[in-house]
């Protein structure tokens, strides 16, 4: 009997231990995920996720400083890919625990989030006037007539070029202004022949330049409804494919396979031009020895009716998540990014970030010349081009379609006919997105 009792108590101890261990595990999980306080109450701290300490995080910091009310504001730096995957896992799990109040999302991904997770985001129409912002930013940041995103930076494109190389080949700023991509390729051949430098650096995996080309003609991979795949019979895309191949065959493309190689391609002086979103300016200026050697012309356009010398690459907007603290967060964004013109001047001066808030473009900071670019009034030029950017609906499938196009582009470069390549891409995209 004694032995049995001893056994029993041992069992009891074992069971107790199990219980404690399990309880410890589960309570750990909870406290790990929930953040602080009762989820129903307004939190004291407003958190924001963004990815670039020199750019969008710096902008948030300036916004915090210029905000009149006292607010406990925490900015958390995450890589953009991490933000995307954290949002996806967090929002799809159904619990909003651990999610930030404000999050920065790239415009071309925005619809995917807005449509995939209805009710996860908080409309901010009451806090800003959407008409104050560049028109092309509104389609990707809104859904069902509700404005969800606060348009932040523009990805307005420009043709950054080395004045010294171009001069050597006999080209001036004027020769590069308002040209077509076909003319650009001709100039590239000349530059390559006379200076021996490559004209452009491209990553064969990244079709960003294709997007720049087609948006300048007001087209995208999908129709205006954002869902109908528009590849076969998409004339701008067709021309963009042809231009891309022509560039590759002209043999003035310096291949890169990632961001740092891309940066070093122009910092080392190996390439003559960088057609890109304006945000590349900071990286170009980073190579101080090239000060004065750079200028920016309007981006080339496609050789067709309706195409303009203005386009967009990248650019992102702030979103408020539908969790406690949303009013506070929306008000913060509205009072800073949404209406404070002075704040935008500071943003230009301190960070070099060009917002899309149109009333701010008359400010002083926008007119100032940039010595690195030979005194050119860069910001002013960019903000003029912003107004011309054709508005397109990116829809929610930009990246999945682009992977399909990238594969077909390889086939096209290897000799497949353009008709077949686009037709196949269309069929694949339709199968994937139904």
């Amino acid at each position, binding site marked *: 009997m004694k032995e*049995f009792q001893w056994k029993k108590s041992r069992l009891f101890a074992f069971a107790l231990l199990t219980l404690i261990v399990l309880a410890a595990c589960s309570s750990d999980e909870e406290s790990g995920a929930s953040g602080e306080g009762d989820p129903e109450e307004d939190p004291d701290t407003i958190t924001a996720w963004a990815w670039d300490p020199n750019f969008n995080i710096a902008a948030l910091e300036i916004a915090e400083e210029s905000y009149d009310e006292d607010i406990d504001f925490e900015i958390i730096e995450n890589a953009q890919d991490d933000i995307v995957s954290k949002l996806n896992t967090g929002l*799809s799990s159904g619990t909003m625990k651990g999610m930030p109040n404000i999050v920065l999302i790239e415009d071309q991904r925005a619809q995917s989030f807005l449509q995939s997770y209805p009710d996860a985001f908080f409309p901010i129409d009451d806090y800003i006037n959407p008409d104050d912002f560049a028109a092309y930013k509104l389609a990707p940041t809104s859904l069902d007539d509700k404005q969800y995103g606060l348009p932040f930076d523009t990805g307005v494109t420009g043709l950054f070029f080395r004045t010294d190389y171009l001069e050597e080949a006999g080209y001036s700023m004027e020769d590069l202004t308002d040209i077509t991509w076909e003319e650009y390729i001709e100039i590239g051949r000349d530059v390559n022949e006379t200076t021996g430098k490559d004209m452009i650096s491209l990553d064969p995996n990244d079709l960003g330049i294709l997007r720049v080309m087609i948006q300048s003609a007001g087209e995208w991979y999908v129709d205006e409804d954002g869902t109908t795949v528009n590849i076969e019979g998409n004339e701008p895309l067709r021309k963009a494919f042809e231009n891309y191949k022509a560039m590759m065959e002209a043999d003035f493309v310096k291949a890169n396979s990632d961001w740092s190689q891309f940066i070093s391609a122009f910092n080392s002086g190996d390439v003559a031009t960088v057609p890109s979103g304006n945000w590349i300016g900071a990286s170009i200026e980073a190579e101080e020895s090239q000060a004065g050697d750079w200028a920016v012309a309007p981006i080339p356009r496609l050789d067709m009716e309706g195409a303009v010398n203005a386009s967009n690459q990248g650019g992102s907007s702030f979103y408020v998540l539908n969790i406690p603290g949303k009013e506070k967060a929306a008000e913060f964004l509205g009072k800073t990014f949404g209406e404070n013109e002075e704040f935008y001047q500071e943003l230009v001066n301190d960070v070099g970030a060009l917002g899309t808030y149109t009333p701010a473009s008359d400010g002083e900071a926008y007119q100032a010349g940039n010595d690195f670019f030979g005194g050119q009034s860069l910001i002013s030029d960019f903000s003029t081009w912003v107004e011309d950017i054709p508005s397109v609906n990116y829809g929610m499938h930009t990246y*999945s379609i682009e992977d399909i196009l990238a594969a077909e582009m390889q086939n096209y470069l290897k000799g497949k006919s353009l008709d077949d390549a686009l037709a196949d891409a269309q069929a694949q995209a339709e199968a994937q997105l139904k």
Partner: protein
Amino acid sequence: MSKAIDKASAPYTGSSKKSAGPGFKKNYMGWLFILLAVVGIGLFYFYPMLRALLLSFQSGMGSNLEYAGLDNYIRLFSDPTFIAALTNTFIYLLVQVPVMIILALFFSVLLNDATLKFKGFFRTAIFLPCVTSLVAYAVIFKYLFGVDGLINQFLLELSLISEPLNWLSDPVLAKITIIAAITWRWTGYNMIFYLSALQNIDRSMYEASKIDGATSFQRFFYITVPMLKPIILFTSIISTIGTLQIFDEIMNITNGGPGNATLSISMYIYNLSFEYSPDFGYAATVSYVIVILIVILSLIQFKVAGDDK
């Protein structure tokens, strides 16, 4: 009969429940001891597996999921990206696993030579890649094989090539780069298994065969390889599973490109969930394909290489 046992056992157990024999009690105790593990495995392995299976029958973007029957599984067969990913993964598998196994065997036999000096150094050197982080080594390989990378400079200096090769942006060369990277990373790992197995082969067999006049090739093929058979089977299964799940190297070295020339199944699952508009249902379907493939391939390997026991 059972009554007799009950009566007989009663005084020993001291239990008032006469029907519970010692056998049951033993089991009961045993179950109790493994209870924690069973619950843990059930909760953290089988439950998610079941949920993933259910998820694989659902379709929709993000949280708008609804049951779609077998649609996802049917979609697999007409999805060229999936087929490309599957093909690439099998190319890695068919080229890389045999190359690595043969290299590992070769190194282990070399390093097992009794007359070799600095054995410890060489063993460590070959095993060392396995200790490095997957991401770190992948990034280094990316730079080694870059257009301006060390490999190109080396080949240029030797005049083996006239202009830099686009290792990462040519469909075939990119695959070679990936295969080279995985082989570098995992050969040492497999070699360790062979080395330890080689220690267990009776020396007298080699001595006897020498006396009988067997050449070293014959000794390798008729003694070493047959004796290592179970280990070769084990390592090839482990490598097959590993290669089917390959992700880090591709994500970091080529990001699936150019086009989708290096895309693997795991990478495609990642893209479906995080890179494109999230379709977790279809992503779960694709991951179940990996499960099915691993089961089939392992069965084949057991049949081909295993003993009949």
